[in-house]
Protein backbone atom coordinates (compact mmCIF):
# COMPACT_ATOMS: atom_id res chain seq x y z
CA UNK A 1 0.00 0.00 0.00
CA UNK A 2 2.70 2.42 1.08
CA UNK A 3 4.83 1.40 -1.88
CA UNK A 4 1.91 1.97 -4.23
CA UNK A 5 1.39 5.45 -2.82
CA UNK A 6 5.10 6.13 -3.25
CA UNK A 7 4.97 4.91 -6.86
CA UNK A 8 1.99 7.17 -7.58
CA UNK A 9 3.78 10.17 -6.09
CA UNK A 10 6.90 9.42 -8.11
CA UNK A 11 4.74 9.86 -11.22
CA UNK A 12 2.35 12.57 -10.03
CA UNK A 13 4.79 15.10 -8.55
CA UNK A 14 7.00 15.50 -11.66
CA UNK A 15 3.80 15.46 -13.71
CA UNK A 16 2.31 18.42 -11.85
CA UNK A 17 5.69 20.15 -12.09
CA UNK A 18 5.80 19.62 -15.83
CA UNK A 19 2.24 20.95 -16.16
CA UNK A 20 3.36 24.10 -14.37
CA UNK A 21 6.31 24.53 -16.72
CA UNK A 22 4.10 23.78 -19.75
CA UNK A 23 2.15 26.96 -19.04
CA UNK A 24 5.43 28.85 -18.94
CA UNK A 25 6.64 27.18 -22.16
CA UNK A 26 3.40 28.11 -23.86
CA UNK A 27 3.63 31.75 -22.82
CA UNK A 28 7.29 32.01 -23.80
CA UNK A 29 6.86 30.32 -27.20
CA UNK A 30 3.75 32.31 -28.05
CA UNK A 31 5.53 35.49 -26.99
CA UNK A 32 8.45 34.84 -29.30
CA UNK A 33 6.07 33.98 -32.15
CA UNK A 34 4.36 37.34 -31.60
CA UNK A 35 7.67 39.19 -31.16
CA UNK A 36 7.15 39.86 -27.48
CA UNK A 37 9.33 39.03 -24.51
CA UNK A 38 6.92 37.03 -22.40
CA UNK A 39 7.24 36.54 -18.64
CA UNK A 40 10.81 37.48 -17.64
CA UNK A 41 10.62 39.00 -14.19
CA UNK A 42 10.00 36.23 -11.65
CA UNK A 43 13.09 34.08 -11.24
CA UNK A 44 15.76 33.57 -13.88
CA UNK A 45 14.20 34.58 -17.24
CA UNK A 46 10.75 34.07 -15.72
CA UNK A 47 11.27 30.43 -14.83
CA UNK A 48 9.44 30.81 -11.51
CA UNK A 49 6.41 32.48 -13.08
CA UNK A 50 4.14 29.37 -12.87
CA UNK A 51 4.81 29.07 -9.14
CA UNK A 52 4.01 32.74 -8.63
CA UNK A 53 0.75 32.24 -10.55
CA UNK A 54 -0.09 29.13 -8.55
CA UNK A 55 0.61 30.90 -5.28
CA UNK A 56 -1.59 33.80 -6.33
CA UNK A 57 -4.49 31.44 -7.10
CA UNK A 58 -3.92 29.65 -3.79
CA UNK A 59 -4.05 32.86 -1.76
CA UNK A 60 -7.06 34.39 -3.50
CA UNK A 61 -10.54 34.08 -2.05
CA UNK A 62 -12.59 31.33 -3.70
CA UNK A 63 -15.91 32.99 -4.45
CA UNK A 64 -18.81 30.53 -4.35
CA UNK A 65 -22.02 31.95 -5.86
CA UNK A 66 -24.83 31.90 -3.29
CA UNK A 67 -27.25 30.25 -5.73
CA UNK A 68 -24.79 27.51 -6.73
CA UNK A 69 -25.03 23.87 -5.72
CA UNK A 70 -22.00 24.12 -3.47
CA UNK A 71 -20.99 20.47 -3.16
CA UNK A 72 -21.01 19.75 -6.91
CA UNK A 73 -19.55 23.18 -7.59
CA UNK A 74 -16.50 22.36 -5.47
CA UNK A 75 -16.25 18.66 -6.40
CA UNK A 76 -16.34 19.10 -10.19
CA UNK A 77 -12.84 20.69 -10.54
CA UNK A 78 -11.52 17.85 -8.43
CA UNK A 79 -13.24 15.29 -10.70
CA UNK A 80 -11.73 16.91 -13.78
CA UNK A 81 -8.19 16.96 -12.41
CA UNK A 82 -8.25 13.48 -10.88
CA UNK A 83 -9.66 11.94 -14.09
CA UNK A 84 -7.02 13.72 -16.14
CA UNK A 85 -4.31 12.37 -13.83
CA UNK A 86 -5.77 8.86 -13.63
CA UNK A 87 -4.95 8.09 -17.24
CA UNK A 88 -1.23 8.25 -16.45
CA UNK A 89 -1.44 4.93 -14.63
CA UNK A 90 -1.36 2.98 -17.90
CA UNK A 91 1.32 4.99 -19.74
CA UNK A 92 4.68 3.17 -20.17
CA UNK A 93 7.57 5.60 -19.61
CA UNK A 94 10.22 3.07 -20.58
CA UNK A 95 10.30 -0.65 -21.30
CA UNK A 96 8.37 -2.29 -18.43
CA UNK A 97 8.10 0.98 -16.52
CA UNK A 98 4.43 1.74 -16.08
CA UNK A 99 2.44 2.21 -12.88
CA UNK A 100 0.07 -0.52 -14.10
CA UNK A 101 0.92 -2.38 -17.29
CA UNK A 102 -2.70 -3.14 -18.17
CA UNK A 103 -3.34 -5.53 -21.03
CA UNK A 104 -6.39 -3.39 -21.87
CA UNK A 105 -4.60 -0.10 -21.19
CA UNK A 106 -5.96 1.64 -24.28
CA UNK A 107 -9.53 0.86 -23.24
CA UNK A 108 -8.81 2.09 -19.71
CA UNK A 109 -7.43 5.37 -21.00
CA UNK A 110 -10.36 5.91 -23.37
CA UNK A 111 -12.83 5.21 -20.56
CA UNK A 112 -11.11 7.63 -18.20
CA UNK A 113 -10.86 10.38 -20.80
CA UNK A 114 -14.55 9.92 -21.71
CA UNK A 115 -15.51 10.34 -18.06
CA UNK A 116 -13.76 13.73 -18.13
CA UNK A 117 -16.92 15.16 -19.71
CA UNK A 118 -18.69 14.80 -16.35
CA UNK A 119 -16.42 17.37 -14.73
CA UNK A 120 -17.36 19.87 -17.44
CA UNK A 121 -21.08 19.09 -17.26
CA UNK A 122 -21.28 19.19 -13.47
CA UNK A 123 -19.28 22.43 -13.26
CA UNK A 124 -21.52 24.19 -15.77
CA UNK A 125 -24.75 22.94 -14.21
CA UNK A 126 -23.87 23.46 -10.56
CA UNK A 127 -22.81 27.09 -11.02
CA UNK A 128 -26.48 27.90 -11.78
CA UNK A 129 -25.47 30.57 -14.29
CA UNK A 130 -26.66 30.78 -17.88
CA UNK A 131 -23.19 31.48 -19.25
CA UNK A 132 -21.55 28.60 -17.44
CA UNK A 133 -24.39 26.28 -18.44
CA UNK A 134 -24.22 27.21 -22.14
CA UNK A 135 -20.44 26.92 -22.04
CA UNK A 136 -20.64 23.46 -20.53
CA UNK A 137 -23.21 22.35 -23.12
CA UNK A 138 -20.95 23.47 -25.95
CA UNK A 139 -17.82 22.00 -24.38
CA UNK A 140 -19.43 18.65 -23.71
CA UNK A 141 -20.97 18.53 -27.20
CA UNK A 142 -17.51 19.10 -28.63
CA UNK A 143 -15.85 16.51 -26.39
CA UNK A 144 -18.50 13.85 -27.04
CA UNK A 145 -18.45 14.45 -30.80
CA UNK A 146 -14.69 14.26 -31.19
CA UNK A 147 -14.53 11.16 -29.03
CA UNK A 148 -15.88 9.17 -32.00
CA UNK A 149 -13.17 9.88 -34.60
CA UNK A 150 -10.60 9.59 -31.78
CA UNK A 151 -11.87 6.09 -31.01
CA UNK A 152 -11.84 5.31 -34.73
CA UNK A 153 -8.16 6.22 -35.09
CA UNK A 154 -7.28 4.23 -31.98
CA UNK A 155 -9.26 1.27 -33.34
CA UNK A 156 -7.19 1.36 -36.54
CA UNK A 157 -3.94 1.40 -34.56
CA UNK A 158 -5.17 -1.46 -32.39
CA UNK A 159 -6.16 -3.49 -35.44
CA UNK A 160 -2.69 -3.10 -36.95
CA UNK A 161 -0.72 -3.85 -33.80
CA UNK A 162 -3.19 -6.49 -32.63
CA UNK A 163 -2.98 -5.40 -29.01
CA UNK A 164 -4.69 -3.08 -26.55
CA UNK A 165 -1.60 -2.83 -24.35
CA UNK A 166 0.45 0.33 -24.65
CA UNK A 167 3.66 -1.60 -24.14
CA UNK A 168 2.94 -3.94 -27.04
CA UNK A 169 1.86 -1.06 -29.27
CA UNK A 170 5.22 0.60 -28.61
CA UNK A 171 7.18 -2.64 -29.05
CA UNK A 172 5.44 -3.22 -32.38
CA UNK A 173 6.98 0.01 -33.62
CA UNK A 174 10.47 -1.45 -33.44
CA UNK A 175 9.67 -2.50 -37.01
CA UNK A 176 8.27 0.79 -38.25
CA UNK A 177 6.91 3.90 -36.52
CA UNK A 178 3.19 3.96 -37.21
CA UNK A 179 3.32 7.49 -38.59
CA UNK A 180 4.82 6.10 -41.80
CA UNK A 181 1.99 3.72 -42.78
CA UNK A 182 -0.65 5.94 -41.20
CA UNK A 183 0.61 9.31 -42.47
CA UNK A 184 -2.81 10.57 -43.71
CA UNK A 185 -4.47 9.31 -40.56
CA UNK A 186 -1.96 11.11 -38.35
CA UNK A 187 -3.17 14.43 -39.79
CA UNK A 188 -6.71 13.47 -38.75
CA UNK A 189 -5.36 12.56 -35.32
CA UNK A 190 -3.63 15.93 -34.89
CA UNK A 191 -6.91 17.73 -35.62
CA UNK A 192 -8.80 15.49 -33.21
CA UNK A 193 -6.43 15.96 -30.29
CA UNK A 194 -6.68 19.74 -30.69
CA UNK A 195 -10.48 19.52 -30.50
CA UNK A 196 -10.51 16.93 -27.74
CA UNK A 197 -8.43 19.13 -25.45
CA UNK A 198 -10.49 22.27 -26.24
CA UNK A 199 -7.44 23.99 -27.72
CA UNK A 200 -7.17 26.66 -30.41
CA UNK A 201 -8.52 26.72 -33.12
CA UNK A 202 -11.31 24.72 -31.48
CA UNK A 203 -11.39 26.60 -28.16
CA UNK A 204 -14.60 28.47 -28.92
CA UNK A 205 -16.58 27.23 -25.89
CA UNK A 206 -14.03 28.86 -23.62
CA UNK A 207 -12.37 31.50 -25.75
CA UNK A 208 -10.26 33.29 -23.22
CA UNK A 209 -10.41 36.81 -24.60
CA UNK A 210 -14.10 37.15 -25.56
CA UNK A 211 -16.11 34.76 -23.42
CA UNK A 212 -14.44 34.61 -20.07
CA UNK A 213 -13.94 30.90 -19.63
CA UNK A 214 -17.03 28.99 -20.72
CA UNK A 215 -18.16 26.39 -18.24
CA UNK A 216 -15.79 27.52 -15.49
CA UNK A 217 -16.80 31.18 -15.55
CA UNK A 218 -18.03 31.10 -11.93
CA UNK A 219 -15.01 29.22 -10.60
CA UNK A 220 -12.24 31.29 -9.10
CA UNK A 221 -9.03 30.85 -7.12
CA UNK A 222 -8.23 27.23 -6.24
CA UNK A 223 -11.16 25.47 -8.00
CA UNK A 224 -10.16 27.38 -11.13
CA UNK A 225 -6.55 26.29 -10.68
CA UNK A 226 -7.77 22.67 -10.57
CA UNK A 227 -9.56 23.11 -13.90
CA UNK A 228 -6.46 24.72 -15.34
CA UNK A 229 -4.24 21.87 -14.17
CA UNK A 230 -6.73 19.30 -15.47
CA UNK A 231 -6.80 20.93 -18.89
CA UNK A 232 -3.02 20.97 -19.20
CA UNK A 233 -2.77 17.42 -17.85
CA UNK A 234 -5.06 16.27 -20.64
CA UNK A 235 -2.97 18.17 -23.20
CA UNK A 236 0.12 16.45 -21.87
CA UNK A 237 -1.51 13.04 -21.97
CA UNK A 238 -2.60 13.65 -25.56
CA UNK A 239 0.99 14.58 -26.45
CA UNK A 240 2.27 11.40 -24.85
CA UNK A 241 -0.44 9.35 -26.58
CA UNK A 242 0.57 10.85 -29.92
CA UNK A 243 4.18 9.88 -29.37
CA UNK A 244 3.16 6.38 -28.25
CA UNK A 245 0.75 5.75 -31.13
CA UNK A 246 2.67 7.37 -33.97
CA UNK A 247 6.27 8.10 -32.98
CA UNK A 248 7.26 4.84 -31.33
CA UNK A 249 6.82 5.96 -27.71
CA UNK A 250 10.07 5.49 -25.83
CA UNK A 251 11.92 3.83 -28.73
CA UNK A 252 15.00 5.43 -30.18
CA UNK A 253 15.14 5.37 -34.00
CA UNK A 254 17.13 2.75 -35.94
CA UNK A 255 16.69 0.15 -33.21
CA UNK A 256 19.35 1.56 -30.89
CA UNK A 257 18.93 -0.07 -27.49
CA UNK A 258 19.26 2.09 -24.42
CA UNK A 259 18.75 2.36 -20.68
CA UNK A 260 15.30 3.07 -19.16
CA UNK A 261 16.39 6.59 -18.21
CA UNK A 262 17.31 7.43 -21.78
CA UNK A 263 14.09 5.83 -23.02
CA UNK A 264 11.91 7.95 -20.76
CA UNK A 265 13.93 11.01 -21.78
CA UNK A 266 13.22 10.19 -25.42
CA UNK A 267 9.50 9.85 -24.66
CA UNK A 268 9.59 13.24 -22.96
CA UNK A 269 11.39 14.78 -25.93
CA UNK A 270 8.85 13.46 -28.43
CA UNK A 271 5.94 14.59 -26.25
CA UNK A 272 7.48 18.05 -25.93
CA UNK A 273 7.68 18.32 -29.71
CA UNK A 274 3.98 17.42 -29.97
CA UNK A 275 3.20 20.02 -27.30
CA UNK A 276 5.17 22.56 -29.32
CA UNK A 277 2.81 21.70 -32.18
CA UNK A 278 -0.14 22.56 -29.87
CA UNK A 279 1.36 26.00 -29.13
CA UNK A 280 2.32 26.58 -32.76
CA UNK A 281 -1.24 25.94 -33.95
CA UNK A 282 -2.61 28.22 -31.23
CA UNK A 283 -0.32 31.05 -32.30
CA UNK A 284 -1.11 30.56 -36.01
CA UNK A 285 -4.74 29.71 -36.67
CA UNK A 286 -7.89 31.76 -36.02
CA UNK A 287 -10.85 30.25 -34.23
CA UNK A 288 -13.53 28.32 -36.15
CA UNK A 289 -17.29 28.78 -35.75
CA UNK A 290 -19.30 26.26 -33.77
CA UNK A 291 -21.17 24.91 -36.82
CA UNK A 292 -17.84 24.54 -38.68
CA UNK A 293 -16.52 22.58 -35.71
CA UNK A 294 -19.46 20.17 -35.76
CA UNK A 295 -19.49 19.81 -39.55
CA UNK A 296 -15.76 19.07 -39.54
CA UNK A 297 -16.29 16.29 -37.03
CA UNK A 298 -19.45 14.61 -38.29
CA UNK A 299 -19.12 15.20 -42.05
CA UNK A 300 -15.35 14.99 -42.59
CA UNK A 301 -13.36 13.32 -39.86
CA UNK A 302 -15.79 10.57 -38.89
CA UNK A 303 -16.47 9.36 -42.48
CA UNK A 304 -12.73 9.58 -43.17
CA UNK A 305 -12.05 7.51 -40.08
CA UNK A 306 -14.57 4.87 -41.13
CA UNK A 307 -13.16 4.78 -44.67
CA UNK A 308 -9.62 4.32 -43.36
CA UNK A 309 -10.79 1.63 -40.97
CA UNK A 310 -12.39 -0.39 -43.79
CA UNK A 311 -9.42 0.19 -46.11
CA UNK A 312 -6.83 -0.84 -43.56
CA UNK A 313 -8.72 -3.91 -42.34
CA UNK A 314 -9.16 -5.01 -45.98
CA UNK A 315 -5.46 -4.41 -46.70
CA UNK A 316 -4.38 -6.43 -43.71
CA UNK A 317 -6.70 -9.31 -44.58
CA UNK A 318 -5.81 -9.23 -48.26
CA UNK A 319 -2.07 -9.45 -47.59
CA UNK A 320 -2.58 -11.92 -44.73
CA UNK A 321 -0.90 -9.55 -42.31
CA UNK A 322 -3.33 -9.70 -39.42
CA UNK A 323 -1.43 -10.14 -36.18
CA UNK A 324 -3.95 -12.50 -34.55
Amino acid at each position, binding site marked *: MLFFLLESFIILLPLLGSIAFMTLAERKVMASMQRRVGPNVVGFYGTLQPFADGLKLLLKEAVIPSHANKVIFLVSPFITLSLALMGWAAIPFAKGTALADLSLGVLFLMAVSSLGVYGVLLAGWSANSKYAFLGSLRSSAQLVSYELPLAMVILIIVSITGSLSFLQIVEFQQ*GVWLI*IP*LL*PLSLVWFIIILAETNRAPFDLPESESELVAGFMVEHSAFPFAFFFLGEYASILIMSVLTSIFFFGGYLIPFGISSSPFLQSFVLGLKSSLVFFFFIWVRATLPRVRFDQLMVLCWCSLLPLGFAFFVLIICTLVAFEATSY
Partner: protein
Amino acid sequence: MASTLQTQDSPRPGGFPAIRYKRNIPKRGPSGLVILTGLTAISTLGFYWASQTIQELRELKRERIWSRIYLVPMLQAELDRDSYRRTRASLQREAEIMKDVPDWKVGESVYNTKRYVPPSVFVLPEK
Protein backbone atom coordinates in the same frame (compact mmCIF):
# COMPACT_ATOMS: atom_id res chain seq x y z
CA MET B 1 -27.45 68.40 -95.75
CA ALA B 2 -23.84 68.47 -94.98
CA SER B 3 -22.82 65.42 -93.11
CA THR B 4 -21.06 66.18 -89.87
CA LEU B 5 -18.35 63.88 -88.85
CA GLN B 6 -19.35 62.55 -85.47
CA THR B 7 -17.05 60.56 -83.31
CA GLN B 8 -18.77 57.65 -81.76
CA ASP B 9 -17.52 56.06 -78.59
CA SER B 10 -16.74 52.74 -80.13
CA PRO B 11 -14.02 50.19 -79.74
CA ARG B 12 -10.76 50.94 -81.42
CA PRO B 13 -9.85 49.09 -84.54
CA GLY B 14 -9.08 45.49 -83.74
CA GLY B 15 -11.03 45.67 -80.48
CA PHE B 16 -9.87 45.88 -76.90
CA PRO B 17 -7.50 43.28 -75.54
CA ALA B 18 -9.01 40.71 -73.19
CA ILE B 19 -9.30 41.84 -69.59
CA ARG B 20 -7.15 39.81 -67.25
CA TYR B 21 -9.64 38.82 -64.63
CA LYS B 22 -7.83 35.63 -63.56
CA ARG B 23 -6.40 35.82 -60.05
CA ASN B 24 -2.68 36.16 -60.19
CA ILE B 25 -1.61 33.86 -57.42
CA PRO B 26 1.73 32.17 -57.86
CA LYS B 27 1.60 28.40 -57.63
CA ARG B 28 3.48 27.28 -54.60
CA GLY B 29 4.60 23.84 -53.58
CA PRO B 30 3.99 20.53 -55.30
CA SER B 31 0.70 19.85 -57.05
CA GLY B 32 -2.09 17.86 -55.49
CA LEU B 33 -1.30 14.83 -57.61
CA VAL B 34 2.32 14.84 -56.45
CA ILE B 35 1.24 15.11 -52.80
CA LEU B 36 -1.27 12.29 -53.23
CA THR B 37 1.31 10.08 -54.94
CA GLY B 38 3.89 10.86 -52.28
CA LEU B 39 1.49 10.09 -49.44
CA THR B 40 0.45 6.83 -51.08
CA ALA B 41 4.07 5.84 -51.67
CA ILE B 42 5.09 6.56 -48.07
CA SER B 43 2.03 4.73 -46.72
CA THR B 44 2.66 1.73 -48.96
CA LEU B 45 6.27 1.50 -47.87
CA GLY B 46 5.17 1.82 -44.26
CA PHE B 47 2.58 -0.90 -44.67
CA TYR B 48 5.19 -3.16 -46.24
CA TRP B 49 7.42 -2.69 -43.17
CA ALA B 50 4.44 -3.10 -40.85
CA SER B 51 3.42 -6.35 -42.52
CA GLN B 52 6.97 -7.64 -42.12
CA THR B 53 6.79 -6.79 -38.42
CA ILE B 54 3.43 -8.53 -38.12
CA GLN B 55 4.80 -11.64 -39.79
CA GLU B 56 7.80 -11.66 -37.47
CA LEU B 57 5.49 -11.34 -34.46
CA ARG B 58 3.38 -14.22 -35.75
CA GLU B 59 6.47 -16.36 -36.18
CA LEU B 60 7.55 -15.57 -32.62
CA LYS B 61 4.09 -16.45 -31.34
CA ARG B 62 4.13 -19.76 -33.24
CA GLU B 63 7.56 -20.56 -31.81
CA ARG B 64 6.37 -19.78 -28.29
CA ILE B 65 3.31 -22.02 -28.63
CA TRP B 66 5.32 -24.95 -30.04
CA SER B 67 8.00 -24.64 -27.41
CA ARG B 68 5.26 -25.04 -24.81
CA ILE B 69 3.75 -28.00 -26.65
CA TYR B 70 7.15 -29.73 -26.79
CA LEU B 71 7.70 -29.04 -23.11
CA VAL B 72 4.44 -30.71 -22.06
CA PRO B 73 5.81 -34.31 -21.61
CA MET B 74 8.74 -33.06 -19.57
CA LEU B 75 6.53 -30.89 -17.37
CA GLN B 76 4.07 -33.78 -16.93
CA ALA B 77 6.89 -36.12 -15.87
CA GLU B 78 8.14 -33.52 -13.42
CA LEU B 79 4.65 -33.15 -12.00
CA ASP B 80 4.25 -36.93 -11.62
CA ARG B 81 7.59 -37.26 -9.85
CA ASP B 82 6.80 -34.39 -7.54
CA SER B 83 3.30 -35.58 -6.68
CA TYR B 84 4.60 -39.11 -5.96
CA ARG B 85 7.26 -37.72 -3.62
CA ARG B 86 4.75 -35.54 -1.82
CA THR B 87 2.27 -38.39 -1.48
CA ARG B 88 4.95 -40.58 0.12
CA ALA B 89 5.88 -37.80 2.51
CA SER B 90 2.24 -37.22 3.36
CA LEU B 91 1.73 -40.92 4.16
CA GLN B 92 4.79 -40.91 6.40
CA ARG B 93 3.53 -37.83 8.18
CA GLU B 94 0.09 -39.38 8.62
CA ALA B 95 1.59 -42.56 10.06
CA GLU B 96 3.67 -40.52 12.48
CA ILE B 97 0.74 -38.40 13.66
CA MET B 98 -1.83 -41.19 13.96
CA LYS B 99 0.47 -43.85 15.46
CA ASP B 100 -1.42 -43.84 18.82
CA VAL B 101 -4.84 -44.33 17.28
CA PRO B 102 -5.77 -47.99 17.04
CA ASP B 103 -7.41 -49.37 13.86
CA TRP B 104 -6.16 -46.42 11.81
CA LYS B 105 -5.32 -47.39 8.27
CA VAL B 106 -2.63 -45.18 6.89
CA GLY B 107 -3.33 -44.04 3.36
CA GLU B 108 -6.92 -45.21 3.25
CA SER B 109 -8.80 -43.42 0.51
CA VAL B 110 -11.23 -40.82 1.74
CA TYR B 111 -13.25 -41.26 -1.47
CA ASN B 112 -15.97 -43.85 -1.78
CA THR B 113 -14.31 -45.57 -4.73
CA LYS B 114 -11.55 -48.04 -5.47
CA ARG B 115 -10.17 -46.00 -8.33
CA TYR B 116 -7.12 -43.81 -8.04
CA VAL B 117 -7.90 -40.18 -7.29
CA PRO B 118 -5.07 -37.74 -7.82
CA PRO B 119 -4.32 -35.74 -4.68
CA SER B 120 -5.95 -32.33 -4.70
CA VAL B 121 -4.04 -30.91 -1.72
CA PHE B 122 -0.30 -30.65 -1.33
CA VAL B 123 1.40 -29.68 1.89
CA LEU B 124 3.97 -27.07 0.97
CA PRO B 125 6.94 -26.33 3.21
CA GLU B 126 6.45 -23.44 5.60
CA LYS B 127 8.54 -20.37 4.86
